[in-house]
């Protein structure tokens, strides 16, 4: 704390800081050696494969939407590194509260592609995850998932479980009260919570600059008395390192971390959006140069961990997994109308019986008609 003179009176300065880093550049070169905690190359390869799968699935999902076989779908194009690093970093027993661009993290957690298709295909069955039963489903009302994750972190703390909750959101979400209320609580209660912001520069048509005048989003952590970190969100290693550090901190009871991962949304906001209406094509072209998959691929190629042959095989495998999942999704029968009542309350309240019966009858009618 230094004392400087401003205007006409003496003012003491209180200083605060956040840190920023990256490890991998666009050519696949590291700025320094990988720290041990993230140097596992098998893991890096797995991450790479997942990112490729994610991008291929994304393309397929958009195609399905265009042909009326899927509902509105939010592309993850260009943002694969963040979510993949999350999936790699998280322990099975951690609790994950995703937002709607967490395809690869969810996939690594065990959510099947079929489940994701069901979800975006308009069926609640898509959130009945068979393999990560405690994770939260995708959250649509922006930023509201943050306090759920805080609640999960409290639950871990109260129960004396040394795990963490991790939650994601977009840059737009950081303007909403829930984000800041949660951040504040995370500090006040020193919660085992990791908050990762996918700063893809846009909230639908609203650019990052309209959301906030601060230089970084990570500096919002300062107001909550917690650590804030900015990482290059297209740098898989940097994101992974940041998350792993934050998780270790959380496990050991040292509190929460806000991680801003800076990336770029290379697609439209969703299939319902047309980014050409508001985005400068030059900006997009520029952003493609920094995209994360090519960058990690360059690294793997350079270290002889990857080659064209493997790439070809991967693409085939990925295509067949995706196609199988799509088929399974398309084959899944639509739920009956009575399903509206079956998960509403723990058991169906008496005064809903007549409506429930009506819905059942509706199903019966439809089936009769099909005969």
């Amino acid at each position: 704390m230094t004392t400087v003179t401003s205007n006409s009176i003496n003012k003491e300065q209180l200083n605060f800081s956040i840190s920023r880093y990256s490890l991998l550049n666009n050519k696949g070169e590291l700025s320094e050696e990988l720290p041990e905690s993230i140097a596992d190359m098998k893991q890096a390869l797995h991450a790479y494969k997942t990112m490729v799968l994610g991008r291929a699935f994304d393309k397929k999902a958009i195609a399905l939407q265009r042909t009326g076989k899927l509902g509105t779908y939010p592309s993850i194009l260009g943002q694969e590194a963040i979510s993949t690093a999350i999936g790699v970093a998280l322990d099975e027993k951690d609790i994950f509260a995703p937002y709607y661009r967490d395809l690869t993290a969810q996939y690594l957690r065990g959510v099947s592609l079929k489940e994701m298709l069901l979800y975006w295909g308009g069926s609640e069955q898509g959130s009945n995850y068979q393999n990560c039963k405690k994770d939260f489903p995708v959250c649509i009302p922006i930023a509201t998932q943050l306090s759920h994750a805080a609640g999960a972190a409290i639950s871990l703390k109260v129960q004396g479980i040394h795990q963490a909750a991790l939650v994601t959101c977009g840059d737009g979400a950081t303007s909403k009260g829930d984000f800041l209320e949660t951040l504040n609580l995370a500090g006040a209660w020193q919660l085992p919570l990791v908050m990762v912001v996918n700063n893809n520069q846009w909230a639908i048509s609203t650019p990052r600059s309209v959301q906030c005048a601060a230089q970084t989003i990570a500096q919002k952590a300062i107001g909550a008395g917690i650590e804030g970190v900015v990482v290059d969100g297209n740098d898989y290693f940097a994101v992974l390192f940041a998350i792993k550090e934050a998780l270790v901190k959380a496990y050991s009871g040292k509190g929460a971390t806000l991680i801003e991962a800076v990336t770029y949304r290379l697609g439209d906001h969703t299939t319902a959006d047309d980014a050409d209406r508001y985005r400068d094509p030059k900006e997009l072209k520029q952003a493609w140069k920094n995209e994360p998959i090519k960058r990690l691929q360059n690294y793997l190629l350079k270290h002889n961990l990857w080659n064209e042959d493997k790439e070809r095989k991967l693409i085939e495998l990925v295509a067949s997994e995706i196609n199988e999942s799509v088929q399974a999704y398309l084959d899944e029968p639509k739920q009956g109308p009575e399903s509206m009542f079956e998960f509403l309350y723990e058991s169906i309240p008496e005064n809903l019986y007549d409506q429930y019966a009506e819905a059942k009858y509706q199903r019966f009618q439809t089936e009769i008609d099909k005969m």
Partner: protein
Amino acid sequence: MSESHVKTLELTLIESINLALNRAMILHPEMVVLGEDVGVNGGVFRATEGLRDKFGLKRVMDTPLAEALIAGITVGMAAQGLRPVAEIQFMGFIFAAMEQLATHAARLRNRTRGRLSCPMVIRAPYGGGIHAPEHHSESTEALFAHIPGLRVVIPSSPVRAYGLLLSAIESNDPVIFLEPKRIYRLTKSNVIDNGKSLPLDSCFILREGKDMTLVSWGAMITETMQAAKILASKDIDCEVIDLATISPFDRETIVHSVKKTGRCCIIHEASRNCGVGAEIAACVSEFAFPYLKAPTSRICGYDTIMPYFQNEQDYLPSVEKIVDTVVASYASKKEAAYANI
């Protein structure tokens, strides 16, 4: 406006909303438009398309992503000389704005004994049927209708959308203006861009009839009118009323109609329990009881969560359901009661 400048256009409902916003921006220099993506993008449904180019950054504002804030600054602007028209992107996201709407927008005039007021409009697309993700298909007009001090308005045609939006903007009361997105682009009709508003205290009789009063609003007017046509072919002559101003509502016209027909059926998309239909049914019972030939029935969304889109048609009341219910109600005899009197 000189009559020579008045244009008649064939428009969809969403286009007529856009037209009304344009017209009102010209008529009211103190009017501003704000919300998420309302500027360059023209709103996700294009309701505000072109406004930014025409009226500039200062009158068409893209806000940060924060519904409570949008409502709060709208109150602040309205109290201090502007006439803000805010968009909530989807009605499913209006909940964060509830505190500002219920505790301030609705109350500022009353709280200050008229010193300050809130001439403001909150527009939001509402209702199901467009194959959207979760939270994009809600109909929660009853929540706002229960808050004294707010006005709730829902148009059901391009012409009424134009006239009612103008009156909502001109009103010095806060208005929640809900737009039935399912029929945003369903049909076109001739809208005269004459800047004339429609009254905020009248419902619209869309079809006269003598056997049964059907009360509905928003997108369900479509199914209700279709049902009325089918019912006519079954010799049940329905009077169809578009409630339009959901709260405060035009009780008199409805009661008058039911006194004539002796029967009433209310059709809405929202869940039945404590929906607006309950209020109308209760009023009918209170004010037209001696004239009732059959119990008032309600055809509503189920008392469940609006399902994801694979099942949304299972939730929404169908033409068939309206027809069946009306036929059953029409057939029901009052005689059973006599024994007990």
